[in-house]
């Protein structure tokens, strides 16, 4: 379902994220309850990710058991984790090397 992703739709925020990338990550973990459509919607709404990127992240969570949804300063990653908890998603913060 990602086969028609045109290059020009690659989210500009990816570049922003790369610039501010720090040593910490927000990780979202798979759970058997949250709907795939809901998780995708949350990634779009909260992080402002494109539909394609949000969908790819949701699939990564679903198939790999977890996915890194943001990288940067620790305080910012903790704010993201709090926001994910508000949505009922299971999120943690970790050092990027672990």
């Amino acid at each position, binding site marked *: 379902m990602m086969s028609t992703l045109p290059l020009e739709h690659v989210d500009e925020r990816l570049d922003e994220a790369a610039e501010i990338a720090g040593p910490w990550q927000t990780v979202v973990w798979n759970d*058997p*309850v*949250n*709907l795939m*459509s*809901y998780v995708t*919607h949350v990634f*779009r*709404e909260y992080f402002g990710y494109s539909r394609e990127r949000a969908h790819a992240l949701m699939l990564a969570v679903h198939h790999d058991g977890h996915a890194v949804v943001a990288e940067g300063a620790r305080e910012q990653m*903790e704010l993201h*984790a*709090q926001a994910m*908890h*508000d*949505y*009922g998603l*299971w*999120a*943690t*913060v*970790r050092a990027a090397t*672990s």
Partner: protein
Amino acid sequence: MSGAAIGLLPIEAAQLAELITQFIELLADADTRADPALARLVPDAYRDDPAAAREFRRLTEADLLGRRVADAQAMRESLASVASRATDAGSSRRPVRLELDAAQSGAWMRTLAALRLVLASRLGIDDEDDHDDDPRFGVYDWLGYRLELLVQALDRD
């Protein structure tokens, strides 16, 4: 993503309001360590660092639970308008149209998702195919259906 219009039967609104009342009561005597359903709503933010997880919880848990209550109350308020309008219209069998703004939509989504998490914990759902004959599974699936419809309505723009 500005908001969403949804249709809701009065009986659905009544059931949602009942579930939300129970949910608010649950949050009120919150012992997040003793109740796995509540624990799921405020998970550890650090997997391998208990001290950091404790500190994060100390700083954020009360606020998070407070936002849960505020969301649930906001949803209950919009449900109350369904009940009154259904009475005015004299029909309980037709869906009532409800316009949710962005803030209300957010409150609905987060509360529907939280209600499912609580029910899943009570039902012991550990994987996606975990269903048995407990009638609460019907409620669980229905909440998922309502959430799915809301997400679709919000994603339409």
